[in-house]
């Protein structure tokens, strides 16, 4: 087995304070970004610029969750790409369905 073992068995180790502080720091970043989104929603006028800002901030949050909390950053490159590359289908679906939507809207209303 060796390399195929799920994790190597280790005995109890005391907590590493710096590691735990880093996790709380990421949580703080996520909370602050959410608070910024919340404030923007109430203060700024609605429009494409605000929507673009929301989407950008969402991607920032998604990056921290996937890279740090799900620890994808620490996996091997092949695994990272086999998760990330299939997501181009999502981008394709966004483009396809939004183009469809403007056409449906023009026909219906």
């Amino acid at each position, binding site marked *: 087995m060796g390399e195929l073992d799920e994790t190597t068995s280790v005995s109890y180790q005391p907590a590493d304070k710096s590691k735990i502080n880093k*996790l709380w720091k990421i949580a703080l970043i996520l909370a602050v970004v959410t608070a910024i989104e919340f404030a923007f929603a109430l203060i700024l006028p609605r429009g494409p610029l605000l929507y673009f800002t929301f989407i950008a901030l969402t991607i920032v949050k998604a990056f921290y969750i996937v890279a740090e909390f799900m620890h994808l950053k620490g996996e091997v490159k092949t695994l990272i790409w086999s998760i990330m590359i299939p997501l181009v289908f999502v981008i394709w679906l*966004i483009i396809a369905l939004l183009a469809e939507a403007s056409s449906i809207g023009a026909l219906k209303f």
Partner: protein
Amino acid sequence: MATTTTGAEEVKQKNVWNGGVAPLKASYGKLMMWFFLLSDAFTFSALLISYGLIRYSYPAFYGETSNFEFSQEYWPIPEKVFEAVPFLHGIELPLVFVGLMTFILILSSVTMVLAVEAGHRMDRKDVVKWMLWTIIGGFTFLGCQAWEWSHFIHGTDAGGLMPDGSVFFGANLMQNQYGPPLFASLFFFITGFHGFHVFSGVVLNVIIFYQASVGTLERRGHYEMVEKVGLYWHFVDLVWVFVFTFFYLI
């Protein structure tokens, strides 16, 4: 083994895809969890992009947000729909409650990652402690969502004018005081599908919490199950981040 290795076998062993090694440096279970989550990401993308398609094809409300009124003619502005908070009846607090729900889910994500970290250290007491906090966070979120659904279904005091001239309160799959009926249908499907994920995540967390507390995982020699349900739990948080943006903010 090493003494009898021939040249051909050596070449075979160096090729990472010929078996006997883990080229992705992850166990089977963890790998399959990642690919399941990828497929789940496609499902949620399809739901949210369908929301985008339907919303974009409907007329939008033009004018000042403060002048907005519910109408069947155009898509509602979400911050005007989701403005109620428990125990504060009649006070307009746009997005406060969903903001709170987002904080709760982020917090339960942190406690989950702390449980995973404790698992790496074989610290049974900490794993149990942080799993318990994660379960509490999950139940709190579900409770908030139940309240929000209940408020959405029962509606506001004023209700909304239907195309036939009657006044309707709240929403179901056929009628909706807040705007076009599809808005309510999408609300039920998207937040409902996410809520079901949260629920199954809490169930998985309870099972792993039990296994950790009775020592099953310690006897197994590793806490990888905590890591696997952790991946699922973080994914549920990730989806909520997108639902929050595309359903409640935009």
